[in-house]
């Protein structure tokens, strides 16, 4: 695939993430913080997000799997996840967390389990898409091309 085509693919791909609501405008803030002093700022931040979220989801699953669910513990995890998803603009994950919290408030174990599934689903989706995005970028860079914020199409 020639460079121009790859870049076009990247643009389209990125656009789709926004169109589908997987990412929101917060994600666009990140490349603006990137500069020569930290040329892979965005990927670093996203990696941090993945690491942290994996941990939170793990703890969250454990706490929900208890015989007696302690919502005092569950809710803070969901709140954390909501917070970190907002940092990179993972909109659908964030929204799923909002729903999750309302069921936590109601102490509805059944519903919370469903919410957890939903949150996980959204999380793996955004994770997957972003990993693909970065791969595309790497290919472009490897082919001698440049990635800029403009390439994200906005």
């Amino acid at each position, binding site marked *: 695939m020639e460079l121009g085509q790859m870049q076009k693919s990247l643009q389209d791909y990125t656009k789709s993430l926004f169109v589908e609501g997987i990412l929101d405008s917060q994600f666009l803030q990140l490349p603006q913080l990137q500069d020569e002093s*930290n040329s892979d700022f965005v990927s670093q931040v996203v990696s941090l997000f993945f690491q*942290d979220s994996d941990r939170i989801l793990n703890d969250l699953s454990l706490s929900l799997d208890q015989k007696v669910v302690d919502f005092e513990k569950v809710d*803070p995890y969901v709140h*954390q996840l909501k917070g*970190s998803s*907002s940092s990179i603009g993972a909109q659908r994950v964030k929204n799923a967390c909002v729903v999750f919290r309302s069921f936590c408030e109601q102490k509805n174990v059944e519903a919370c389990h469903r919410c957890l599934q939903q949150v996980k689903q959204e999380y793996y989706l955004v994770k997957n898409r972003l990993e693909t995005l970065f791969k595309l970028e790497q290919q472009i860079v490897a082919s001698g091309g440049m990635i800029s914020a403009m390439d994200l199409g906005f």
Partner: protein
Amino acid sequence: MDKGFSPVGLRVLVVDDDPTWLKILEKMLKKCSYEVTTCGLAREALRLLRERKDRYDIVISDVNMPDMDGFKLLEHVGLELDLPVIMMSVDGETKRVMKGVQHGACDYLLKPIRMKELKIIWQHVLRKKLQEVRDIEGCYEGGADWFTRNDETHYLGGGEDVSFGRKRKEFDFEKKLLLQDESDPSSSTSKKARVVWSFELHQKFVNAVNQIGCDHKAGPKKILDLMNVPWLTRENVASHLQKYRLYLSRLEKGKELKCYSGGVKNMDSPPKDAEFSSLIHKGETDPKQLASSSVSDPSSDVHMPPKAKKTRVEFDPPISSSAFDSLIPWDDVIEPKPTILYESSFLQQQPLPSQSPYVANSAPTLMEDEMKPSYETCVNADEFLMPQDKNSTVILQDLVDLSAPSVISSNVTNDTETMLRSLNWELPESHHSGFIDTDLDFSWIQNEHFLANTSGNFQNFQFQDYSCSPSLLSELPPHLWFGNEPEEYTLMIDNGLFIS
């Protein structure tokens, strides 16, 4: 920090347990040209802050921290260190935001945070500094002319609700005093000038009082006449006298002084000043007379907060305990910011060693301006902005021991006590102040805290002048001395020095 104030290099401590946000915020803040320190734990943040108090200008913290409630951290930082704190959260519920404000946050940012929000956080630092300056500047004004303060209240904002409220209260109080003067129709204009009670001016005041001596009526008018300061008004003197008497009573109580209760037993409302003068000269202190000549209902004029409002008839601890509860912690940790300083001793209050650098530095300025009717506005404030640049020169250096701020000589205390006892001032054990207004209370408490540490230095000087002081404030029936409302102090002052 003594820059002319530039946002560049603002030293920010950002506290967040979310590593992603911490990284993003660090980058964003650096992009604002701030100097950034990050921290993932609240306790760690507190440790850093306490370690070097002057190392940071502002703290930004997430509300939800794993090791400590963000609001608690906020309180600690605000109280112990008096730094502006901005709260952040992904949660924007009104009640949470309100909680933040109540705990003293100067702002509450909602995640995701935008650059433009971070670009303006330096305003909180500047605002706080200006507030401090104005607080301290106020110490040196003994006159009743706090009209211009009204302008300042507009500049005040942020989380310093209490001090803001206090300034409003002072404004209202003083405005009332001014409005009470009927003799001069143009009084409201002429009184816009602030009187700066310089050392020399106060000396004249003190001398005048002494001159009047023990056997004569020492009302503000007489004092004014004796002082022979053309531009000074009776109101200025009255107000100064009032403050001075309160200062004395505080000296008496030292650290414990919290109350000026003596009971306002029969007073219903304060008479007008003009009528007072006549009363003074007539030697009347008939409460009925006083009661019948009321200016206006102080409660409507002075906008006392409801919880503190009480009848004048009986003086019960006016301050609701809740008001005090909130005030007391502040007393312990806040830098003393005396709002009213009187007497040469209190004109140049010694700053506590690590606090209020502004206070000492402003003294020289006052000395220079002493005899001029000072139309002080923000001029002094500007000077005050860079206190570190000035040397600490204190007028009373030869009289006081700067290195021993907490000395309170017992014999001097006894003198005060004697004096006050002769005035039949009750020295209450209870823990409340004569002010209803909690905002004023706040200022008094701060005053006391401050004075307690420094008053010892001035007492010698103090009492050289007032060897026969007991008579000055004597003879006035106790019920006229203590006011629940500020107007009553005016009442008291005008009557206070008259000795039949």
